């Protein structure tokens, strides 16, 4: 490929290289699991600290967690609707927290200082496997939500205003996970690459604004992912009259 002709030290960015774990027959991207375990472990510690002593007058961490809970509830309620948002709030919230923690953890923690035999640590969401896994979970969720709420009437959605919509609606079931996964993957990977290239070229000062932009993008992407997931579920459970 044409990129092979670039100087060899460009490979210091190590794009597309993975730390492979071989378990029996299957191969895993070890760096994705390592970072996700560290970040999710930190998230769980944070949450257990905040919910250890729940009081009626919230203080400190509990206050922050309640704000977060309220934020996620508002998100789920506005997108899914008053009737069933309670069932899906933990899923939407988990998606939001997972993507947010992964994105910010990937951007804020200097993973490059930890040398791996192959590949490098980074945001788990910069790996296509993670984002496709999340997107497929969203697809399964909205099918399940539609079928469990409306039974076979869920499929009325496909011919809803007119049967002409049928092919487009079927196509949507494929484009939804595709756009979800590639949007997240592309944004986070691009952010990591831009910061990586800038740090590689100009190691001082210049990458800092781009890093801030990266943090902003990361937060926005988490919000977009959770909002779209909630919107798809809301669309599936919506009653047409």
């Amino acid at each position, binding site marked *: 490929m044409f990129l092979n002709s670039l100087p060899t030290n460009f490979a210091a960015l190590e794009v597309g290289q993975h730390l492979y774990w071989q378990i029996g027959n299957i191969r895993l991207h070890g760096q994705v699991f390592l970072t996700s375990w560290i970040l999710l472990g930190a998230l769980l510690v944070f*949450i257990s600290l905040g919910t250890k002593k729940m009081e009626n007058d919230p203080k400190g961490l509990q206050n922050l967690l309640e704000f977060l809970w309220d934020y996620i509830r508002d998100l789920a309620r506005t997108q899914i609707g008053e009737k069933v948002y309670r069932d899906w709030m933990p899923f939407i919230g*988990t998606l939001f927290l997972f993507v947010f923690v992964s994105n910010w953890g990937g951007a804020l923690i200097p993973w490059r200082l930890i040398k791996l035999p192959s590949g490098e640590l980074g945001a788990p969401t910069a790996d296509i*496997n993670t984002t496709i*896994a*999340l997107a497929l979970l969203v697809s399964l969720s909205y099918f399940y939500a539609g079928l469990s709420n409306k039974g076979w009437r869920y499929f009325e959605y496909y011919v809803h205003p007119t049967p002409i919509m049928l092919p487009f609606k079927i196509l949507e079931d494929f484009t939804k996970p595709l756009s979800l996964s590639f949007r997240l993957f592309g944004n986070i990977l691009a952010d990591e690459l831009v910061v990586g290239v800038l740090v590689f070229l100009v190691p001082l000062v210049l990458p800092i604004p781009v890093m801030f932009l990266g943090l902003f993008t990361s937060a926005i992407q988490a919000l977009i992912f959770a909002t779209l997931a909630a919107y798809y579920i809301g669309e599936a459970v919506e009653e047409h009259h």
Partner: protein
Amino acid sequence: MLAFDFFGATEGGLFDINATLPLMAIQVVVLTYILNSLFFKPVGNVVEKREKFVSNNIMDAKNKLSEVEKLEADLLSQLQSARSEAQKIVSEAENESDKLYKEALELANNEANASKEKARLEIENQTSSAREQLFNQAADLSELIVNRLILEK
């Protein structure tokens, strides 16, 4: 699977999809259950309990406020009626006292007039008797004078 040879990586590449995908999906599902029992349920319970408490209190306060307003209106109308009653009583008493005053005045006037009339009559009587007496005396005196004059002659 979809292993494109991107950026010259010998194996894998950006679009290397393998068992990481299902395992990550399982991990996220497990995380959903953990976060549900660790975060969403307990925090939700606390927040919803507090929201219920607050809304109950607001309802209570609203009920009390409307009760207070009702009582206030009641009191105000009572006050109004009491005031008008007092006004009525005062005006009645004023009328009464006015009447009494007029009656007393008339009585006193009549009495005064009567005694004045009596006094006048008495004065008139005395005057006329005194005049009569004086006339008699003058007659006597003149007779006396006449007699004397006649006798001296």
